[in-house]
């Protein structure tokens, strides 16, 4: 369960007064979870890095409008990450030039490359991405917050600006749709495996 964070609330108050140190503290606190979610949504290392950068730049640009849930901006960051990942081209347009200047340890490395080393980890990431891709951005954000990040439906509702009841209904439907998608993926894999075996 995610609990409210007094230190983060303090830091966020300072961010709203344009305090750079506080903003970097927020970045340090949440970057890993934002990145993991971006990877979950894109299944591509470079795209996930770009989306992470975009999410924090958006957080700064829209700091006055960002919703704070129980003292934390993480839910808002995760929702924004979902939206950016759902529309990479449009969502990151304003930050493309800046992101292009950021160096990377290995410019040729992509999730597909890494997958050769960590097939199981990557396979899970890809399956989750495929399952999330069938949902609307807001439903994908609801699933992310409640299933992967362990927020309560009420907290997820607050992050998205909808009622608790609406959130619960949409979470139920989205989980059902995701389950159907995962089942279909399983069937496809089984069929593929059978075909391989029969060759």
């Amino acid at each position, binding site marked *: 369960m995610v609990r409210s964070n007094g230190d983060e609330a*303090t830091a966020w108050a*300072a961010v709203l007064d344009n305090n750079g140190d*506080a903003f*970097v503290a927020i970045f340090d606190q949440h970057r890993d979870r934002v990145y993991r979610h971006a990877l979950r949504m894109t299944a591509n290392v470079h795209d996930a890095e770009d989306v992470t950068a975009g999410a924090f730049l958006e957080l700064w640009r829209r700091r*006055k409008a960002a919703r704070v849930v129980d003292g934390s901006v993480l839910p808002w960051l995760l929702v924004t990450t979902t939206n950016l990942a759902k529309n990479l081209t449009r969502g990151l347009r304003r930050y493309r030039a800046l992101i292009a200047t950021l*160096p*990377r*340890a290995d410019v040729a490395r992509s999730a597909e490359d890494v997958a050769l080393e960590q097939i199981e980890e990557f396979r899970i990431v890809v399956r989750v991405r495929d399952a999330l891709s069938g949902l609307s951005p807001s439903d994908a954000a609801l699933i992310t917050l409640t299933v992967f990040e362990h927020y309560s439906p009420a907290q997820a509702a607050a992050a998205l*600006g909808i009622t608790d009841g609406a959130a619960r209904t949409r979470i139920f439907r989205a989980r059902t749709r995701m389950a159907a998608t995962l089942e279909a993926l399983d069937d496809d894999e089984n069929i593929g495996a059978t075909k391989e075996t029969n060759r």
Partner: protein
Amino acid sequence: MSTMEMDPVFTAALREALVATVKDTPRVRRRWRWRVGTGTFLGLTLVAGGVALASGMFSPPGAPVDSPLGNVITATRTGTATIDIGTPPATATDVSLALTCLTVGTFYFPNGSSMNCDSADLTHVPPSDGPASEVVPLTAGVDTVTIKTSPNATWTLQAMYVNQVTTPWGVNASGETYGVENQNGTPDLIAVIINQGSTNGYVKESDLKCAGGGDPTSRAEALAWDKASQNRNITIPVYESDGVTVVGTFTVGSASGPNAQTVPLSSLSLGC
């Protein structure tokens, strides 16, 4: 590197880019919270620029205090427009502005700060953040406020002249200044709030700077600090305003997980 961890080179560079982005943003001098009273706005104590100052409930030395002057001017417009806010009272120093978006769009205050509203911001009940507020200094001979917007964006502005006074920092028996950062700089002891808002106190500016990695002068330095900080939080003492009596600790860092360690600054040899 695992796929589940972000490239450390990219992380460090992004961190630097965020610092630069913040630095390039026009400085908001302070924020003002509004409350509608009987036809007037009642100014609450503001949130000022202390490194870790959290709320207006605690108003330490050095914080600016705004006193309302005259009437509130309210105007609703679509697109970029200039509002006449009348002749400033003799004692006015600043104009307090509260901007509410009525449609989606981007809205710019005169000081360059901006607000972006999307459809979710408009339908959220109650409004997620209320109006965006800024206090901008008066410009001699100018008694108008211009709000720039994206095309066809509608907004309501409430403006009021204020007299702003920055309270002086306190000075303790050791000659150290204490309070919040303001336009005069940074005091020796910076106001913080700890223990979920229940304790007010001060950290030494030198401790805070040291525990935060100082001022890295290169990407390599920032990267090295970033790596060292991945599993490490540093605590620094929180004092009464005397700079001697310890009332708690303030944690710098955000490391978590099984390998995270929280260590006092005094146990490290950081050379600062």
